[in-house]
């Protein structure tokens, strides 16, 4: 018993020294903390990532480690610097994160979301685009759009997303200053008048699933208006953005016709947000190989993944590469895993793991699992 508590004490002591930073506010992170882990408050984590946002394997790991620890890495710091330096009166700047599979794009995005939350941005976060377009569970709710001819709605998905939006921004939405500028008439009896709070619009979308897609359109329009008029600043984060540009989705209409991404109403809404015709906001998207079909995963570079359409939409964007671990990051990560007892064995094993995983964060985590 004594030896156990002694070991715990040792572990805690080592935590403070080598691989952890006590600085838990992303806006305060700087170069000195590169490669160090900071832990995210559990409640905040639940609020931000309850409906997705962390990769599945990482979410599982947080459960195992009983904490959500994110490594402070160069791309995130770089992006935060850029956001701090940018002029919010000018049109929004688009950032595209790219990198090999499993190099930590989504986690960098999570880090940035935390930053945005702390800075009081209105967060528009799409956890994974392919969740809408490429994942087809047995009962995918799909209907033809009432308002737009030839388009397809995904009402349930959109309603779920609105719920995600609501939870992420619950603090900001309480603010009744955020008012909508137009009257929206949904049906004979239902309408949302101009001047009612934004939260009402969102609520309507969640409660009346039938109109969720139209609500999303309205919401995007209103967010742009609000941002332009400086009533809020907006942080748009879309993971797997290139999923919007793949040639076909996995959806079928009842007539067995394959649906193209641009024929889904939500695609149009989110692409509208990625344009730079509004200001006072930040748009961060990731280009991921996994968001595309298998035959289009040869390169991880943005132009290839975004196709011509996506590139032209985003251009000029700031490409930000999320690379493999550097030596320092790798050592820090290894000692973190050792601390969490995720990695055991002699110290030479680290050299070997470094070689076999090629410093790829995801592979490293996977290879440590059975050790």
């Amino acid at each position, binding site marked *: 018993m004594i030896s156990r508590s002694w070991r715990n004490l040792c572990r805690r002591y080592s935590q403070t020294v080598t691989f952890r930073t006590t600085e838990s506010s992303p806006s305060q992170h700087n170069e000195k903390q590169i490669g160090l882990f900071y832990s995210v408050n559990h409640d905040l984590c639940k609020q931000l990532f309850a409906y997705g946002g962390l990769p599945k394997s990482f979410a599982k790991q947080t459960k195992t480690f009983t904490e959500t620890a994110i490594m402070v890495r160069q791309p995130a710091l770089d992006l935060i*610097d850029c956001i701090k330096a940018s002029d919010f009166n000018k049109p929004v700047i688009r950032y595209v994160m790219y990198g090999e599979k499993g190099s930590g794009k989504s986690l960098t995005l999570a880090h940035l979301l935390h930053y945005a939350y702390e800075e009081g941005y209105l967060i528009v976060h799409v956890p994974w685009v392919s969740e809408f377009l490429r994942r087809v569970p047995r009962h995918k709710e799909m209907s033809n759009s009432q308002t737009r001819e030839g388009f397809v709605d995904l009402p349930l998905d959109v309603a779920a997303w609105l719920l995600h939006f609501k939870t992420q921004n619950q603090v900001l939405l309480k603010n009744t200053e955020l008012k909508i500028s137009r009257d929206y008439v949904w049906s004979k009896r239902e309408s949302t008048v101009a001047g009612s709070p934004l939260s009402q619009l969102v609520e309507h979308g969640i409660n009346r699933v039938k109109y969720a897609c139209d609500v999303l359109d309205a919401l995007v329009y209103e967010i742009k208006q609000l941002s332009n008029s400086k009533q809020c600043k907006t942080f748009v984060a879309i993971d797997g953005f290139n999923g919007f540009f793949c040639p076909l989705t996995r959806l079928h209409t009842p007539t067995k016709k394959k649906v193209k991404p641009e024929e889904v109403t939500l695609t149009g809404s989110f692409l509208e947000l990625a344009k*730079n*015709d509004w200001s006072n906001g930040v748009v961060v998207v990731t280009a991921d190989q996994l968001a595309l079909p298998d035959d289009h995963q040869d390169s991880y*570079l943005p132009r290839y993944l975004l196709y011509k359409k996506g590139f032209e939409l985003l251009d000029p*964007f700031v490409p930000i590469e999320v690379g493999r671990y550097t030596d320092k990051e790798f050592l820090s990560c290894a000692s973190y895993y050792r601390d969490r007892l995720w990695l055991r064995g002699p110290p030479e094993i680290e050299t070997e793991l470094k070689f076999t995983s090629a410093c790829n964060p995801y592979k490293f985590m996977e290879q440590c699992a059975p050790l």
Partner: protein
Amino acid sequence: MSIFIKYYKSGGLNVAFSNKIWRYNSTSADMAINKGEEEEEFRVLDILKKRQRQQRRVNRRADVQPDRADRMPTDQNWGNVWPGPKTFHPSSVPLPLRQGYVPKGQAPPGKKANAELMKIPNFLHLTPPVIKAQCEAIKQFCTEWPKLLNSEEAIENHYPVEIITSDYCHASPSIRNPLARIVTLRVKLSTLKLDQHARDKFIRLVGERYDPETDLVTITADRCPIRKQNQDYVNYLLTACYHESWNFEEWEREKMEEDMEYYNWDKNPSKRSLVNWYLKTQNQSKELSDEEYSNYDVSQIPNGEEYKVAVSSYMNDGESEGTVEKYGEAVRKLLGLPQKKVVS
């Protein structure tokens, strides 16, 4: 009595006289004694005839002359020994050659009676001194090399068209080789007088015969039976392509942006979005026509030129980590963002 005879046999000159005397005296007595000895001796029956076999004469060979190769003087004129191409002959070649299958632990077979050496063609008639001598002999028939063509560049400049043919030389009943008819014409594209349109069209016409890395157009003809015909044909092809590329057909106006062989930034949406972005930062909202977009002067946008170069190289040179990085730098300058910090 026999003792006496022995004594006198071993005697000197003075004994010779007495010998003579004694011989005359004792002739009859000697005869009698010899007869008696022959009768006493047994004759041996030699069944196996051993003696005869021992006595058989050993056949001695006639004396062999040493090899010619061994007798050659070291300072001989090799060209005279081996004047022309011929099959290998061991006695003519004073070299310790070995060739053939090597049994384990032994040396390869020597040069004598070696079919392996005879099978392979040799160049013993083309040693450097021989070649030199032959060149010297031909020299009187040569004209002088033009003085102005003193470098590779000068030759390339004055004679841009290169004709490549092959001659074949072999020992068979026919001296003709069908491969000798093939003619290859090579010319640098930059030496042809072409404008931008003509150049593009020329490249499309010649297709894969143009190598962009070396800038060479290679046209090969083998369809006619004779070299002369092929050469004419190759020249015809080059001429035809050249003049055709200068023609402008009406349907060429229908060329779209997707058909472009290179990325023309001025006509692409990238420029449009840049101009739109710039106008928005200046708080102007203008609707421009396509013409105005493509003619918009980028140099008035700060860092616009650099951005143009970066996007063009991104698209034209292919996507790689380097071009993406350059593009990122240009965009950051354009948008006024801090540059990426280099991680130590």
